[in-house]
């Protein structure tokens, strides 16, 4: 099965099985992806794993589209891989800035909590169903979400709020 065949099959599968949640599909550099409703993301991912063999969650991350003309400010991106077919596939969904919450993929892949904790730390996205919601990279008592586009690039940021780290 060629890469495009498997990707087309995955797109067709999502279009038919999740017709309510399916939003659109596109390709970049021969890599196809689908955009689905936020509420259906876990069901779509589970179906991709169980029915199409995308058994590895390569990565899960968030993108801040501040200043761009997009439906919502944030989007989640799930990068999947199939060991059987040696193919990648990408799933996206939008997150509104005033309700940064999405269902956790930790019940599908045991590797998901690491990435989800990082996304929570860096972007402030809450994951429903994630058991361990601690910060991953910044100190446990940190309050900001540094990878948001409106976070200060240079200077103290919230550093000065932590006198026990910053004298």
């Amino acid at each position, binding site marked *: 099965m060629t890469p495009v065949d498997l990707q087309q099959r995955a797109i067709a599968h999502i279009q038919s099985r999740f017709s309510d949640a399916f939003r659109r599909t596109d390709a970049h550099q021969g890599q196809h992806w689908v955009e689905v409703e936020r509420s259906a993301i876990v069901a779509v991912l589970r179906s991709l794993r169980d029915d199409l063999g995308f058994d590895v969650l390569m990565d899960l991350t968030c993108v801040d589209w501040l200043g761009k003309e997009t439906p919502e400010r944030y989007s989640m991106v799930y990068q999947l891989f199939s060991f059987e077919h040696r193919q990648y596939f990408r799933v996206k969904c939008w997150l509104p800035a005033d309700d940064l919450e999405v269902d956790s993929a930790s019940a599908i892949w045991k590797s998901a909590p690491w990435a989800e904790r990082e996304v929570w730390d860096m972007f402030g996205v809450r994951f429903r169903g994630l058991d361990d919601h601690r910060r991953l*990279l*910044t*100190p446990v008592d*940190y309050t*900001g979400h*540094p990878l948001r586009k409106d*976070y*200060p*690039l*240079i*200077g*103290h*940021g*919230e*550093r000065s709020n*932590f006198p*026990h*780290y*910053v*004298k």
Partner: protein
Amino acid sequence: MGLESWLPEGALTTRVEEVVNWGRKNSLYPMPFGVACCAIEMMSTLTSRYDLARFGAEAIRFSPRQSDLMIVSGRISLKMMPVLAKIWEQMPEPKWCISMGACASCGGIFDTYALVQGVDRFIPVDVYVPGCPPRPESLIDAVLKIQELVEKEKLDAHVR
């Protein structure tokens, strides 16, 4: 010739302080706090090409309790700083500290939310090494500077 004439052949007189400091300065045990690219230069300094063993400081101790020279080589994040401070406190007196490279000394180019702007805000630094990263020769020079400090150490300086 005073006291020496009473001593058997081969015996010398000196002060305890000088003997102890002479021994200390020629057998420094570095605690390598290597967290970034400066650590690569530090490792290079230890190799046979630059040979820190010429100055008696080649025996790296990864336990703070067995070491007396902290070499902070690399950038220290907010999350790492408490760890560094704890390791520094675990080192027995007398102890010295080299802040190696721009990041450890002042934060370097990383004036961001994540980095401590100089470890000297938390632990006492004896010698700063400029550079990004510094050449091994610079680190060797810093070790020699530390040796000068060790020479001047008072024996009762750490008696509490």
